[in-house]
């Protein structure tokens, strides 16, 4: 859908929100049942968890399966199915498991379940925690050792991700309609029904080891279109809508009977500058150009005008809360167009006849590629940035890729100077994103297109290697902050634009909901319906 069409449909929905007469307050049923509108059913045959799409934002994964360690709302680690953990050296973590826990099918939870799940994860590729067959070793019924196949002390921070949720042994992936294949975890809710493309229903697990869920039943309805989710909320067909479009959020907030809640920052919008591009995409190699770019974008204006204040200006790419007091190490760049001009002047870039700067007969013209995870969510940031950069004499040509595959191809070919991306943080490892995207040591296990195009080099790589090998959480945060400072302040390879919120709409009847910055880690056990 084009931007214009999207604008039209948003106008229609907003007009509808304003025009329709709100229904009178309804007496809620005493039943503790919640209907949640989530995005599309991203069904795929999951080799670990079975024939159900379980990893959508705000989705049911977290309610059915539990991880050994949980991710708190401030990205802190909390006990889950493991009550404690310690690094015992030789790349190995020892976890003590919770006793008295049972799977939804009645099986007791023991170290055997951890081994069975981790072996399945290994068969499915091992994930970012580099799990291999035999990585999980049973010490006794309630103690397990986990040794990744490559040096990775970050294991505990990584296994908070729902993809590491523990599955009941000997349940097999296959059609979830068959009882034997039913996704079976230990979570506060258990699966009742899954209708592909339509709904997934869970019910409260009365035998749950923790605080019992207050809801008796939850229905997750798959609604791919964000405007439909909002209309479903307006019509009372659903009680809850995830990922409310930022253009509608402020208007929706004025609707009687509906609340809009915003999570702490868990996502970001950033521009990466190619420093290893090939002709003609080589201007990002020049540090002065990168510094000017970072000084010339008014991030506060972007937050105000593009995100309608559903975001904050952030000096880092990852949520600042993850870095603790070390956040101050990352200074960020102020909006200072005069300084941007000065930096360019000093570097020999002089304004040409049309105001665009030139040096040695070459125009300061850059290609901005937009398309990850899709082009729509960035709009109209590229156009706004284009205008701001023109003010300092930098020409930007915007290249919108039609889909993420085209974007990835473009990235693989390195055909672009500026790369606009949105991402999110779903685990507790502050080095996750910098490691994933910018570590570039040749032959490294995760050598990918990002490192090849943006990787700052050995100094940065050494910081990441410390991240991977330190068991001290404070040291980890400090090094992560130093890595961010190198990327943002010293080298200006990453221009963090904003830290963005998950915006959710809910009926006023819904109580006890605490939005998690990582949508994948959203819990529902404290939620209840008021009268």
């Amino acid at each position, binding site marked *: 859908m084009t931007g214009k069409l999207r604008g039209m449909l948003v106008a229609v929905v907003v007009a509808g929100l304003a025009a329709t007469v709100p229904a009178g307050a309804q007496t809620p049923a005493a039943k503790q049942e919640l209907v949640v509108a989530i995005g599309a059913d991203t069904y795929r045959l999951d080799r670990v968890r079975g024939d159900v799409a379980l990893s959508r934002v705000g989705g049911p994964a977290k309610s059915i399966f539990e991880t050994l360690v949980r991710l708190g709302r401030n990205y802190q680690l909390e006990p889950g199915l493991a009550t404690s953990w310690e690094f015992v050296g030789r790349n190995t973590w020892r976890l003590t498991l919770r006793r008295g826990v049972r799977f939804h099918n009645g099986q007791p939870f023991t170290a055997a379940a951890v081994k069975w799940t981790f072996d399945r994860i290994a068969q499915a590729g091992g994930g970012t925690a580099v799990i291999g067959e035999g990585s999980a070793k049973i010490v006794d019924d309630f103690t397990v050792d986990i040794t990744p196949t490559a040096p990775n002390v970050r294991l505990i921070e990584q296994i908070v991700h729902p993809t590491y949720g523990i599955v009941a042994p000997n349940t097999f992936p296959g059609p979830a309609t068959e009882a034997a294949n039913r996704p079976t975890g230990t979570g506060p809710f258990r699966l009742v029904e899954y209708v592909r493309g339509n709904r997934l229903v869970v019910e409260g697990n009365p035998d749950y080891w923790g605080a019992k869920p207050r809801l008796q039943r939850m229905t997750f309805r798959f609604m*791919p279109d964000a405007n*439909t989710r909002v*209309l479903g909320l307006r019509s009372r067909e659903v009680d809850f809508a995830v990922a409310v479009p930022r253009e509608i959020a402020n208007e929706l907030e004025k609707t009687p009977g509906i609340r809009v809640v915003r999570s702490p920052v868990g996502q970001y919008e950033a521009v990466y500058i190619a420093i290893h591009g090939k002709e003609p995409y080589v201007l990002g190699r020049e540090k002065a150009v990168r510094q000017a770019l970072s000084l010339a974008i008014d991030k506060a204006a972007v937050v105000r005008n593009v995100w309608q204040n559903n975001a904050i200006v952030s000096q880092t790419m990852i949520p600042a809360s993850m870095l603790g007091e070390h956040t101050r190490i990352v200074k960020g760049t102020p909006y200072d167009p005069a300084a941007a001009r000065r930096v360019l002047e000093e570097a020999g870039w002089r304004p040409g006849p049309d105001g665009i700067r030139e040096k040695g007969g070459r125009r300061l013209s850059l290609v901005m590629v937009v398309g990850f995870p899709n082009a729509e969510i960035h709009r109209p940031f590229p156009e706004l940035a284009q205008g701001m950069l023109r003010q300092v004499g930098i020409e930007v040509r915007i290249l919108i890729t039609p889909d993420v595959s085209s974007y*990835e*191809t473009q990235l693989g070919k390195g055909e672009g100077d500026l790369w606009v991306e949105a991402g999110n943080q779903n685990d507790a490892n502050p080095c996750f994103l910098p490691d994933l995207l910018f570590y570039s040591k040749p032959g490294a*296990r995760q050598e*990918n297109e990002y490192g090849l195009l943006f990787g700052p080099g050995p100094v940065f790589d050494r910081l990441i290697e410390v991240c991977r090998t330190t068991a001290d959480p404070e040291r980890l945060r400090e090094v992560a902050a130093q890595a961010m400072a190198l990327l943002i302040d010293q080298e200006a390879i990453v221009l963090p634009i904003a830290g963005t919120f998950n915006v959710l709409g809910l009926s006023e009847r819904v109580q006890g909901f605490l939005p998690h910055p990582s949508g994948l880690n959203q819990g529902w056990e404290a939620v209840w319906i008021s009268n």
Partner: protein
Amino acid sequence: MRRYIARRILNLVPVLLGISLLAFSLSALAPGDPALRILRLQSDAPPTRAAVAKLRVELGLDAPFPLRYLRWLQDAARGDLGESYRTGEPVLRALALRFPATAQVAVVSTLLALVISLPLGVFSAVRRNAPVDHASRIWALVGASMPSFWLAYVLILMFSVGLRLLPVAGHGTLAHLVLPSVTLALGGAATLTRLTRSSLLETLGEDFVRTARAKGLGSFSVIARHALQPGLIPVVTALGIRLGHLLAGAAIVETVFAWPGIGKFVVDSIYDRDYPVIQGFVLFTGIVFVLVNLLVDLAYVWIDPRIRIEAGRG
């Protein structure tokens, strides 16, 4: 007649060969790598080049284009359209699973469009330049210009948010079928109304209609028995094309109404470069169009006696 139908069905073979080759070529030319996409869907991490290369080999994507096409053709001839890269399910099963929902909304909306457009078009032609004709022409213009997603939102606002009569989205009951069908029907009905009107106006000027009137037949008889049938030929053609399109999925309407049809599935498959699904879908769409065209041709035979003779000879 049987020979005619058999010949038309035989024509399917070169048609399907042609479109499958075209679809295969377009997939190969489109930017994007299915292996990269699959790995990206499976993990938060951008995959390594080595992992992508390994998966390309596993998927057979490293083979030269003609070889890949021949392999696919060989399997397709045996009824095996491969497995979806994304979901892992057999393509034939994936399409068959979603087709009933698509067929439901396509058939209901087409019938609805016919029920609206036929009387309106006839009435408009018979009362040419009367207020009812003007109103019908305005409706046709507005209806044909309305984007389907916009109409969908307006209908949801009216009937779901405002009146609370119908569900906003979903699938499973008759009530769920109403809004998607009406959304698709209104756009189609507008075009068909114009077409019915213009076609009937043309027929009403023909000699045989004048002769019928001269014989003293009543207005209703002249229209119903003489003018309407030949006037329907272009309408049936347009209807066939529309039905074919709808059976191939209506991605936007399916997305808005969370309708689990084939359209959105295929659009997502295109985004993710799920080649087996794309090829399977193209083949499926080709068959649908050929069969619908065949039905349209047979309808001509029923409508127009002159065509019946041609078909009989065929």
